[in-house]
């Protein structure tokens, strides 16, 4: 198993989650509506981050299958918050590819009058360093 200490610490820092609180009950995966779409399931995200096995997660499509519905956060008996781990890995993937993914000049192209302003704000937050 590949242990990437730097990325592991980074993900733990971004998510604010302590993966060692997990008692491996799998309730997060059991409750996940996107389970069948995923190669790695919520409990595996937690477990792999705990082991520092980050690369496969970064390269997996599973990252983008999570709906951020937070059912796993609601039901986890140990308060581990798996969705935050998934989000942190996602952010790591986005940031790792370098540079800004959204600049101000790109906005007119993608925006129409139905786009809520909040979407732009959160998109800037997420895709711009």
């Amino acid at each position, binding site marked *: 198993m590949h242990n990437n200490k730097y990325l592991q610490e980074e993900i733990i820092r971004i998510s604010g989650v302590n993966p060692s*609180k997990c008692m491996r009950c*799998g309730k997060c*995966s059991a409750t996940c509506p996107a389970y069948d779409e995923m190669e790695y399931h919520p409990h595996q995200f937690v477990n792999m981050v705990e082991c520092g096995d980050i690369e496969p997660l970064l390269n997996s499509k599973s990252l983008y299958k999570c709906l951020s519905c937070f059912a796993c956060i609601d039901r986890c*008996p140990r308060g581990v918050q798996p969705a935050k781990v998934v989000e942190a890995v996602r952010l790591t993937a986005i940031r790792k590819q370098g540079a800004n993914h959204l600049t101000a000049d790109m906005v007119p192209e993608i925006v129409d009058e139905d786009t809520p302003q909040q979407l732009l704000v959160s998109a800037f937050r997420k895709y711009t360093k």
Partner: protein
Amino acid sequence: MQRVGVFVCWCGSNIAGTVDVEAVSEALKSEPGVVFSTNYQYMCSQAGQDMIKQAVKEHNLTGIVVCSCSPRMHEATFRKTAAAAGLNPYMVEIANIREQCSWVHKDMLTGTEKAIILGKAAIAKVNLNAPLIPGESPVTKRALVIGGGIAGIQTALDIADAGFPVDIVEKKPTIGGKMAQLDKTFPTLDCAACILTPKMVDVAQNEKIRIFSYSEVTEVSGFVGNFEVTIKKNARYVKEDICTGCGACVEKCPMKRIPNEFNLGMDNRPAIYIPFAQAVPKVATIDPNACNMLKNGKCGVCSKVCAAGAIDYTQKDEYINEKYGAIVVATGFNPISMDKFDEFAYNQSKDVITSLEFERLTNAAGPSAGKLLRPSDGKHPHTIVFVQCVGSRCESCAEKGKEYCSKICCMYTAKHAMLTRDKYPDTEVYVFYIDVRTPGKNFDEFYRRAVEEYGVKYIKGMVGKVVPEGDKLKVQASDLIANKQLHIDADLVVLAAAIEPDKSARPLATMLTASMDTNDFFTEAHPKLRPVESPTAGVFLSGACQGPKDIPETVSQAGAAASKVIGLLAKDKLTGNPCVANSNELMCNGCSSCANVCPYGAITYEDKEFRMPDRTTKIRRVASVNPAVCQGCGACTVACPSGAMDLKGFANLQIMAEVDAICK
């Protein structure tokens, strides 16, 4: 001036690992009064104690300071050592340099510095110590057991067996507790009623045991050996001594649709009821919230059909005062409420039930006469899903569940699963588990038998959600070993709900001044060495009120608590604690502040004649402390505005000397 000896303990590496014991004993050598100072690996060992005795003789010591663990651990040990060396045992002071020093510090320098300061404080105190002689108090040779489940029953039987009278106070109309509701008991599958009801009959027939059923403890005062307790006997509107338990009233009562608590509300009972056939005492009880006669003055059928004339609508709650030497708490447990676990649809479907409800469903005396039928439509379920750890081992959701493992669920679920497969082989049984915990005699063998011989499907993983759809329950769960998400169409879902202490435990703990943990389980005096005693003298613990327990464990703890009670009641007199309050009559102005704060009622006032400087006499009102009742809590010394009240062994002067030594 005292001649003080200082003994610094290493406690192996417990103290010596973070405290330079050599430096401590050296530094304390030059303190006022100290004539001898040394250190040793284990002061509490025979060799260490002999070293103290030797030093007392050689150096003519009058006071001893032991720098070691908490006084709760070994103060008694070192007092005995001092007594054996001919010193008054209250000339010993302990400086706690383990729990309050070496265990909380990592750095040798700070640890050593603090140990020296703690030692100095103890020396300053011992210099002001005076020999104390404890008083004696009598023992009331009667025990009270609060709670009439299997724990209370076993404790009462064992105490009565030794010849002491026992009273059981049970808030329900019958004794028997949770065990009376169970069907079979693991791991030997004896029928719960078959092994419990003979014990209940033994209790009823034992001349030494009185049962106060449908009663509760409302007030406790006094202290070990001399408790005074008020018991409220709730009006059951039936004369207990006349009722024969024939059940004619139960049959004829027109108010028949009251949810039956004994069957967890899965069927109904009348307003006048006997909880179950083998109830002890077998006496009817009228539910005042349901009885039309008591509510509206109309009906009276039960009194007409009662051949014995036992019905009494005018009965009032009765208060009984009794003295006891010892009190045993056996208040037991309840499953937690499933209301907050929406994901399991407990409140949406009748076919999602708790394990205790499952016990009633499979019990021959239960709502379905022992046939396993779905509560919703009375059909036989073909697929049953058991969910473990519902509300147990929860960390984040403290308001939802409990942090601890409820301990009994793994085994009773294995039992339920096995019995279902045995009786109804056409039923698919799934058990979703996080861990299977079976540390008991023949426990793991039992669980493996469920899997290997009875074909119960154990799946590692938790159920995520249960959704009622038509007459099915859609169960979504993960199989962590196969790395698959499962969708099961179940007919019945059984939740292994966490267990919690009975709600009556907390107010009772306040009455008894017995300590509890954050989960409301009673705390034992020592987790390993005094597991059935409360830190409050004379209060003992039996059964699940102290922590989750199965029946074998409960019965052994009940016996252990009984033996502790017998040991106490066998004594004619108890040696008291000499560290009690006393009032300096010359300074007391009779203001009553002390009597107002005393939780034990130990302080009274008397008018006393005093000779004045001009040779006249004057009568003044002054406080006087009953040393047998005083527990030495010290509340009065703080409340006294004139400084007249003082605590022997912890005098104001001694405490100030300690503070001075620390601040120097």
